[in-house]
């Protein structure tokens, strides 16, 4: 694996810049559920690009930028028009507008390519990072940082850099306004920050970002960078500032990882490189998957672990309560088999093991019995259960033979109702409150 300044420096830089530009904006799109607007604009800048190209007669970046930005704004306007005049729902309106515009673009490209000009639909779709190779690059880092080499920086990269600066400045300066409009549009407008105007600002930025990035990653794949890093960050944190920072990191990781994966990994197998932009998208998707599964706050694994912990605690509570009830009937020790049948279908052995470790129960042959501390813990659970039964009958007016199941769920919550009683609706005694209720296991 070797990094060659000639082949890799500019493409990699362009890829990273494109990922950053889209990644930052994507946060607001995802929060406002406008991800598909990014999709729509990415598709429909195509005719704008082609028309600008045909008018300017060359691939002048400035002209293309203007043309595509106008196309982007036109898209937003047309979608609103179709929604309002036609009373069409938003998703369908977007679909109609962008697919018509995209088809127009495809037709125009074919027209242009007939004239033997080098605007290829494929590149618009998935970019052509390879063409940014810099064949006269110096071989050392010192050479690269020399001021003279800056003249060789391709215009795509300077455009991207300028766009990135624009996006960063807008995000920083308008952070609170964008956040407010995304969170509560009605309040935003009533406070004087017109939500509609901010929406237009956001869409214009997306259009500019799309245009600036399309040469690096292609317009279709801009969508990936507009959504995936922000979505990944969303799964990792609950603060917007942190989310934006994380999305920046994920965007860079996707770009670098994707580029490396595309160019250097196939080389290991003796194969030609695969498309870098596509590879970046796949890496972005992989990072999202990793976050969805592994995120400590929102991931699937973490949620599963939490559920298991709760289930374990509930089982322990139930076991202690069962032992206490048997003790009330005069049985000091309960055979394991009977305990198992009471708590079936859940396996009782793990609960026995953990409570034995905590000193709440002791084994005597085949029997399990509560220790003194165990009895206090069990009493707390029973107290909670019977107080809840009393509360449900006296305050909520439920029939006394309907309250057991509900109380059996509420007893695990850890909060007792705001009443006290000596006996529950079935006449059973309510254990008195312990000095601290922290004897309950697992709290």
């Amino acid at each position, binding site marked *: 694996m070797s990094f060659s300044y000639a082949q890799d420096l500019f493409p990699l830089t362009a890829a990273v810049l494109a990922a950053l530009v889209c990644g930052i904006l994507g946060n607001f799109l995802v929060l406002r559920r406008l991800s598909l607007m990014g999709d729509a604009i990415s598709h429909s800048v195509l005719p704008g690009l082609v028309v600008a190209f045909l008018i300017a007669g060359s691939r002048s970046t400035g002209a293309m930028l203007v043309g595509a930005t106008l196309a982007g704004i036109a898209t937003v306007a047309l979608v609103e028009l179709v929604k309002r005049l036609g009373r069409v729902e938003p998703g*369908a309106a977007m*679909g109609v507008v962008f697919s*018509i515009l995209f088809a127009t673009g495809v037709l125009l490209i074919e027209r242009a390519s007939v004239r033997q000009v080098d605007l290829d*639909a494929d590149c618009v779709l998935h970019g052509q990072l390879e063409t940014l190779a810099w064949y006269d690059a110096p071989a050392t880092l010192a050479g690269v940082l020399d001021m003279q080499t800056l003249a060789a920086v391709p215009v795509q990269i300077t455009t991207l850099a300028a766009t990135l600066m624009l996006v960063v400045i807008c995000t920083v300066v308008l952070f609170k306004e964008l956040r407010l409009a995304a969170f509560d549009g009605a309040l935003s407008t009533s406070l004087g920050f017109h939500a509609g105007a901010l929406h237009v600002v956001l869409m214009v930025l997306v259009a500019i970002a799309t245009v600036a990035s399309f040469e690096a990653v292609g317009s279709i794949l801009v969508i990936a960078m507009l959504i995936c890093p922000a979505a990944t960050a969303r799964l990792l944190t609950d603060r917007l500032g942190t989310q934006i920072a994380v999305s920046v990191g994920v965007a860079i990781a996707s770009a670098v990882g994707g580029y490396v994966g595309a160019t250097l990994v196939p080389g290991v197998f003796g194969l*030609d490189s695969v498309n870098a932009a596509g590879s970046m998208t*796949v890496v972005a998707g992989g990072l999202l998957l990793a976050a969805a599964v592994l995120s400590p706050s929102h991931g699937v694994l973490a949620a599963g672990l939490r559920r298991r912990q709760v289930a374990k605690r509930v089982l322990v509570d139930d076991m202690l309560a069962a032992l206490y009830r048997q003790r009330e009937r005069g049985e000091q020790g309960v055979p394991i088999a009977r305990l198992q049948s009471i708590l079936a279908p859940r396996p009782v052995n793990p609960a026995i093991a953990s409570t034995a470790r905590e000193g709440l129960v002791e084994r005597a042959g085949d029997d399990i019995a509560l220790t003194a501390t165990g009895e206090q813990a069990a009493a707390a659970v029973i107290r909670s259960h019977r107080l809840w039964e009393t509360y449900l009958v006296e305050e909520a007016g439920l029939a006394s033979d309907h309250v057991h199941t509900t109380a059996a769920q509420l007893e695990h919550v850890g909060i007792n109702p705001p009443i006290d009683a000596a006996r529950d609706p079935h006449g059973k005694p309510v254990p008195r409150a312990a000095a601290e209720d922290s004897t309950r296991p697992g709290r």
Partner: protein
Amino acid sequence: MIDAPLASLGQVVDQWPTVAEVIAVLTLRSGFNTTVVTIGTTLFGLAAGVIGVFALLRKRAMVTDALSHATLPGIGLAFVIAVALGETGKSLPILLLGAAVTAAVGAACLQAILRYTRLHEDAASGIVLSVGFGAGIVVLSYVQANMPAGAAGLKGFIYGQTAAMGARDAVFMGVTAVISILIVVAMLKELSLVSFNDAFARVGGIRVGLVDFGVMVLVVVVTVAGLQAVGLLLVVAMLIIPPVAARFWTERLWLMVVLAGVIGGMSGYLGASVSALLPRKPAGAVIVLLAGAIFALSLLFAPARGVIAAAVRRVRLRIQIAADHALESAFESRDAESDLAVVLQRVAAQRGWPRWLTPIIRSALRRRGFAHGSGAAILITGAGLERGAEVCRNHALWTQYLVGYADVATNHVDWSVDQVEHVLSGQLIAELEGELIAKGIAVPRVPA
């Protein structure tokens, strides 16, 4: 560099086909291949329109976009595997099977995202769309580097390639489309109920989840069938545009389904014909643009919900209301023999009519027989006075109701009455009289 690049935009084609060629294609007499392809594409358009209605009504329009993009990796992988197994990679069923598999995987991923994460439907669709397409591009670039012969054919799935379609491919497309349509027709009742009110359907015992799943399966099938015709980027257009266009023409579901099918079918038919005549034009784009043109026409000209029709209705209603005001004023001042011009002048001043309205009202009244004569001597007829009496009575009735019954402030009554008096039905009037009488409030009678 091009000379006069803009001028080149005006020239749509390099070589116009002859009239004879055009007719031959349109009447399906231009060779077996062309005919079959045209029919297949038409059937695809039909199926896409029909199924698209339900995707649209279930608000899943953009999900279809995600699924169509997710077919690309499947096509590429199927090709690679097929070649590795020694088959010729161009076997359509294998490629389409691959497409269907990854589209299904995409749908499953979408559901998983919605179920297990806090992300919403728009983000989930976008993720599946972009990651799926990206993966597909990667596979395609691998194919391009290592099996260049195959890559060009595969690219056809992105943009559509009716010109390169064989008879067998077209037949496959047609058969798939017909099967999908038959399934929809068989399940029309359940689909309608679920689309309209899924809570009600659930209560009625219909497994809404299953129906939704069925719709998605049909979407995938139709998508895969249409890959060759329009390419995966624009399949979504055929699933969305015909239903949206059909919506402008009717309020009834079954009619919307039929119209969507017709619009889709026509777009397919005309698009395939154009593609046959001008083989270098990307077929998918042509088909979609034709559908788009029909959409634009529907948006503007459809009588039920079109923009122009709505505007015309509004204008007509305004004219009717203004005419009624004129006749009412004539009646009130007992201008039985009076000059229409005088009446119109009075009412125009009272109501603040714009200058252009008066002559229109004059001709409207004459047309409906409420005034007759010509030139300077136009008089209001007896029929006109009767109508004026009727309006006058309604006005009084509503005023009575609003003041005596609904406690509207007296200085607001005229405006409120204005809203209702022109749209009263006979039944409503009878009810109104009944209520007033029951309350002991005098019901106005207008002397004949």
